[in-house]
């Protein structure tokens, strides 16, 4: 059992089940990110852990103690809100000191703790200012400071960077990772931004329609998605999914027929009932190469080409595939709109999914050569 345990946790609003029996263990000091599309229940789950939402069924345990009926302050939890939720009439000092004022901490303790938080967050020179005088990043740091002074067992973050511009978001990501290392506290972080999830998390929890689609380390989710949902959600641009038909299963993997070509994808262990089965073949855009050769070749005519310098991204239509087929080539490549070109990819870079969208597990070690 971890520091935080969710046991068959359910949340219903009227007749609508938003969180559908979630089980999860979070270890002390872990940085866990809840990720998923809008409406998947990630924020609701976080608010249930916080104590802001009543838990309809199941148990929430912190250090082994059931906390379902405890108010937030008794759960040893602090939360940073998406909208910062700063008190606009109070100075930065008073905002950070607010939880300590509530618990009537002695003035010298209060000053010491606020100063320590301000030092960590580089807010020393802003303490007398009001939130309205601060930039978005500084406001977010004040909100984090208010959480830090409580010295909580668990920090909760509800999409804390979503109101910041892209550059500031990247800076704050690094700062939050640094803060996690510095404090060594357990952090649970909700975002819909997979870059935040991939860069900050020890483990990512992918949620879909109130269920956990997969839990794992970022690269585990990238290399070994357990289902089509995770395969499509993790990775940007998203994985291409091509229709395929099973031909045979053997010790080398599963041989499929895809776009009239045969290739053997190294999945294990061998399976029965593959012959003639409708499968989906997944290939990430960054695993596609220019030219012919390798295991599967495609002749494409890109309709849109994006030259980013670092990458060249192309979008083309492939028969039987929705939406468009995407490829990412390193650097600037001589690829143009409406001019046909040959691309190819290796069977070992491919992912296979059955008709229910569940992955056929890839053979151990295949990701090493991705």
């Amino acid at each position, binding site marked *: 059992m971890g520091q935080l345990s969710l046991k068959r946790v359910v949340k219903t609003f009227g007749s609508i089940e938003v969180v559908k029996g979630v089980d999860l263990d979070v270890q002390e000091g872990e940085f866990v990110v809840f990720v998923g599309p809008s409406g998947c229940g990630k924020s609701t789950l976080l608010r249930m852990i916080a104590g802001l939402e009543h838990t309809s069924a199941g148990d929430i345990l912190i250090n082994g103690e059931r906390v379902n009926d405890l108010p937030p302050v008794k759960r040893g939890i602090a*939360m940073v809100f998406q*909208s*910062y939720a700063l008190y*606009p009439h109070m100075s930065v000092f008073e905002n950070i000191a*607010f939880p300590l004022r*509530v618990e009537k901490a002695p003035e010298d303790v209060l000053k010491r703790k606020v100063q320590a938080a301000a030092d960590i967050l580089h807010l020393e020179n802003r303490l007398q200012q009001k939130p*309205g*005088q601060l930039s978005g990043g500084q406001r977010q740091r004040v909100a984090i400071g208010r959480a830090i002074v409580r010295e909580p067992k668990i920090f909760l973050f509800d999409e804390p960077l979503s109101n910041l511009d892209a550059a500031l978001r990247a800076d704050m990501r690094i700062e939050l990772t640094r803060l996690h290392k510095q404090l060594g506290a357990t952090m649970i972080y909700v975002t819909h931004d997979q870059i935040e999830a991939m860069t900050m998390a020890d483990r990512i929890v992918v949620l879909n329609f109130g269920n956990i689609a997969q839990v794992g380390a970022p690269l585990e989710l990238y290399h070994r998605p357990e289902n089509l949902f995770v395969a499509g959600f993790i990775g940007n641009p998203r994985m291409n999914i091509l229709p395929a038909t099973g031909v045979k299963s053997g010790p080398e993997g599963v041989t499929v027929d895809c776009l009239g070509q045969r290739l053997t994808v190294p999945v294990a262990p061998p399976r029965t009932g593959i012959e003639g089965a409708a499968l989906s073949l997944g290939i990430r855009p960054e695993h596609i190469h220019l030219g012919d050769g390798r295991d599967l070749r495609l002749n494409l005519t890109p309709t849109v080409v994006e030259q980013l310098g670092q990458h060249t991204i192309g979008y083309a239509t492939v028969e039987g595939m929705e939406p468009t087929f995407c490829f990412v080539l390193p650097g600037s490549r001589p690829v143009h709109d409406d001019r046909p070109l040959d691309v190819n990819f290796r069977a070992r870079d491919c992912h296979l999914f059955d008709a229910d969208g569940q992955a056929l597990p890839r053979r151990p070690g295949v990701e090493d050569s991705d």
Partner: protein
Amino acid sequence: MALFRKENTAMIDRYSWWEIVAIYAGIAAFLFFMLSPFIEGFLVSLKPLAQLFSSPYTFWPENGSFDAYFTMWDSVPGFGRYIFNSFLISTVATVIVLLLVVPAAYAFARFNYQGMGLVLGGFLAISMFSGAVLLIPLFRLMRTLGLLNTYFAMIVPGVAFLIPSAIWLLRTYMKRIPLELNEAAYMDGASQFYTFRRVILPIASPGIIVVAITTFIGAYAQQFVFALSFNSKTEYMPLPVGLFAYFGRQEVIWNELMAASFVGITPALIIIFFLQRYLVGGLTAGAVK
């Protein structure tokens, strides 16, 4: 000119010059419509009584002076008392209304319970009653309570009539305060009352001041009918009734009546100007996003 301040350049981009002229002309016409009775009243207060009855009527004062502002005190002895009474009644009514309405509006803004819409609708319905319609039952009530011929006879019904609109106004304002501020305070262990006192009240203060001003003005305006109906003692009479003393048997001392009107509303104006300084917009700036 606000239109041409830097932050309003968008308006110039949005409207052509003739549209801006039309907007200003509209504002000027509205201001003239609103202010013309005051302007004429003020001019009348400066005119000698003889000029007021001369024919044809002249708009601008001839030999204008502020004499009426001095003589009015002699014509109606005890006029100061009327001003004091009005001020007292309005102030006490405003304080009582605020004490009741601020927590009520917060409750209506933040808590959901069954039948809340019905209660709020009821308040709205009550505020649609004209005070005059209820005068007879109110008179019986005041008599039963033994409040006739006291200040309370003018304060209590006034408070009852002022509460509904004040609740609606303040509730709307408080609903705009982000709920996350309550949640953040709750996360930090603050009680509902602590949150209300330390977080919500300071942020809601511009709304509370607006309600205080409208209540004060409302209390000033409604004194006339309650004073005439529930009070017959001169020492408790408020200003609107006191002004009747300038209506003599043979003539109305118009210049002194106008002067007395302006003197009478001065304390209210001073209070409103004082409170207006606290009507700072954007107090929630920086709270969220």
